């Protein structure tokens, strides 16, 4: 059936899998995004990194297809694959021509329902996880993120998204297979589809492909927050990497849309405050940005930049000042620009099947249901200066954890 332009459709299969679908008239392509609660936060405490190995191992053969046959099966339809694994979720993405969806979706389903997990594919998957861990250690941005997350959370949510070298080295195929059987399950999972088919048709195809997936997810509980603190992790490199982390409003809480607009004014555009003050006026950094991160229901704001160590203390002070100034509210012009930018961003994202599918999946994870593009546009348009500034004034005084990595800052923030 040809797609219609009506809003997204949503269903929950008896096995617990939540499926959202949006038809996109005019597209001949289709993207699918599967996200399920497999991440290093859920790994046994002595097997950190098992999730990374599992994610790789899953893709090395399913049913009667070995790893090569599996790759060939996707390629027969020119299907492009992606995906990854983090602390909380693993994901698989696929993009193909809409007319091939009935052939490609079962291949994706096979990855999570019929993976072979052959012994002779285990070592390669484990070695790859070790390689990725080592590669992250050579990436300054990744080192900063790992340190920032560890500074925000105690316990499992503060772990590395890549695992622990010693744990990875000791994992056996039998142990990881047992973990995989318990953790590659539809409970808590989301499948989102967007593209050139009718939404009802996509839901039906997905229900057929994924209906046989079985298993319940263990509850991992809420993350444990650490108190505010100052952390420096020394490392090589010419630039000091800087992160400021503070509390943010959670999805579904009052102020969520106000926060989104305020973040756009802070960091989401060319005239945004951080860009203007840090880069345009002072030339302190090449990159500076701030975003909201959601982890197991917790929300935090992460503001980051990098600069030479002799200017790092000045930059940290400037970032502090700008975050603190948010509570004073936006000007009318700023609000109008931020609203236009957010509205346009929603439209841009909804023009590509991959962007639309990823947004549907994150909506289901965050709000429990997919949102229509128009719903988001309307929520943004309905904001007034009184509402936004009332929200900003109600925020607590800035209490940010400051994390630096690389060379130690010179000056006031050296300690």
């Amino acid at each position, binding site marked *: 059936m040809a797609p219609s332009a009506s809003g997204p459709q949503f269903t929950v299969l008896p096995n617990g899998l939540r499926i959202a679908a949006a038809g996109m008239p005019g597209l001949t*392509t289709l993207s699918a995004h599967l996200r399920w609660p497999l991440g290093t936060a859920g790994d046994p405490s002595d097997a950190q990194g098992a999730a990374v190995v599992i994610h790789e191992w899953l893709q090395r053969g399913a049913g009667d297809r070995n790893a090569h046959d599996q790759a060939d099966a996707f390629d*027969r339809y*020119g299907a492009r694959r992606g995906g990854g694994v983090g602390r909380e979720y693993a994901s698989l993405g696929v993009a193909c021509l809409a007319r091939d969806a009935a052939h490609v979706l079962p291949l994706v389903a096979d990855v999570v329902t019929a993976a072979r997990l052959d012994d002779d594919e285990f070592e390669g998957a484990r*070695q790859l996880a070790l390689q990725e861990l080592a590669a992250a250690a050579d990436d300054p941005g990744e080192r900063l993120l790992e340190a920032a997350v560890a500074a925000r959370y105690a316990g499992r949510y503060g772990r590395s998204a890549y695992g622990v070298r010693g744990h990875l080295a000791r994992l056996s195929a039998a142990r990881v297979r047992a973990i995989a059987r318990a953790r590659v399950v539809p409970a808590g999972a989301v499948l989102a589809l967007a593209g050139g088919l009718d939404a009802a048709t996509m839901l039906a195809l997905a229900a057929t492909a994924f209906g046989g997936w079985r298993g319940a997810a263990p509850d991992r509980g809420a993350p444990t927050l650490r108190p505010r603190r100052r952390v420096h992790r020394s490392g090589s490199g010419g630039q000091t990497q800087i992160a400021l982390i503070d509390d943010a409003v959670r999805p579904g809480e009052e102020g969520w849309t106000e926060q989104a607009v305020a973040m756009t004014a802070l960091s989401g555009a*060319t005239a945004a405050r951080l860009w203007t003050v840090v880069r345009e006026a002072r030339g302190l950094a090449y990159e500076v940005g701030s975003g909201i991160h959601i982890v197991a229901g917790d929300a935090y704001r992460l503001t980051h930049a990098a600069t030479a160590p002799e200017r790092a203390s000045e930059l940290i002070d400037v970032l502090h000042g700008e975050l603190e100034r948010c509570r004073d509210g936006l000007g009318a012009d700023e609000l109008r620009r931020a609203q236009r930018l957010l509205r346009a961003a929603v439209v841009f994202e909804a023009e590509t099947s991959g962007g639309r599918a990823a947004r549907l999946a994150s909506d289901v994870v965050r709000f429990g249901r997919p949102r229509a593009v128009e719903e988001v546009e309307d929520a943004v348009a309905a904001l007034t200066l009184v509402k936004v500034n009332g929200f900003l004034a109600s925020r607590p005084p800035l209490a940010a954890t400051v994390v630096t990595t690389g060379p130690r800052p010179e000056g006031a923030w050296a300690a």
Partner: protein
Amino acid sequence: MGGVKVDGFDLVTLPNGLRLIGQRADARSIAVGLTFNVGARDEAADEGGAAHLLEHLAFKGDDDRGADDVNRAFDELGARVNAFTSHDRTMYYGAALPDECARLTALLLSLARPSLRPADVEVERRVVLEEIGMAEDRPEGRAWERGAQLFFGEHPLGRPVLGTRSSVAALTPERMRAFHGRWYGSERALLVVSGAYDWDAFVAQAQAATEDWTPGGSTRAQPVWAPRRGSQEMRAGGFERAHLTWFAPAPSSQDPARIAAALLARVVGDGDNGRLFWALVEPGLVDDAALWFDPADGVGSFQAAATTDDAQHDLVVETVVDVLTRFEREGPTAPEWARAQRALATEVTLAAESPMGRLADLADAWLDREEAETAEATVARILATPLAAGLTLLEAAPFSSGLRFSLRPSSGP
């Protein structure tokens, strides 16, 4: 001025030489790009980094407005705006809702005539030096840059796009003005639009806004060049892993064999099912391995990169040499070729989903080849490219004529 219509495209050249091209699409957004056919390869010996610094300075405003005004004006449109500089091109582009097409176009055109105020040059120089600092902290980028320098030798494609700390420090406002005068002439510019536009209004606006633009008269040098061969290594501090790069000669952007070259690269370098994936990634020898085709103006190259534990460096080198030698000797199998065709066709179709996705290819195809082709036509061309075209390219043994460069940690074995 109505211009010419070619298979779904609108085309016109204004009297001052500025070219305009439009591709109509039924979309909720509109994308506009202003491309100058100038990049790092066009810099003189004492201008390293000028093309890129000029891209930064364009956003600092013209005689009518400052940087803050420019940034605010883009945000007023709700526009997503950015720019990039490569060896071949400098492109300013943005997407907005269709009713803002005229204002977006006006702003992008205004970027091309920046004031180049000394204070702006100083601030932006500091930003670029931080950008260079960031690049220096990323060993894979350092390895690639050095590899390109060795492979291209005296050819300007071997220069770093950002320039060096000393070359950027030497870029005075006067030098920037001279560079701008030579290379930002109307005849080197292309204004591209994709989405639901009003062509006559677009052309009339561009003509009025660029009335005082004049040709700059510079032409790009295409020096005679032979690829450098061999292998080199360097050890340095500040990182833990070995970063390997390979370069080999390939067809240019103008060469009809470019599609066959893209398919060959896909057979070897596809991230999910290419020969390097099975030889290196699947056994966990490297965390990632890629081989791709880079069709520059007049000179193309195959490029590859992989990262590994330093202790496995030699094994990775041997494996890659083995894969490439065998590939050159035997060529792709028919199923490999067909898979590569379908994969590339899907990617072209996906990229064409949004007006923004179409913009850069539209500009490259017109500037390099005066070719305007829909995604459907490109897909048909990909699917019609025979395996024999790939085998013909391999007869020249491109991979045996290449260069390897490894950046290895000084703390290694």
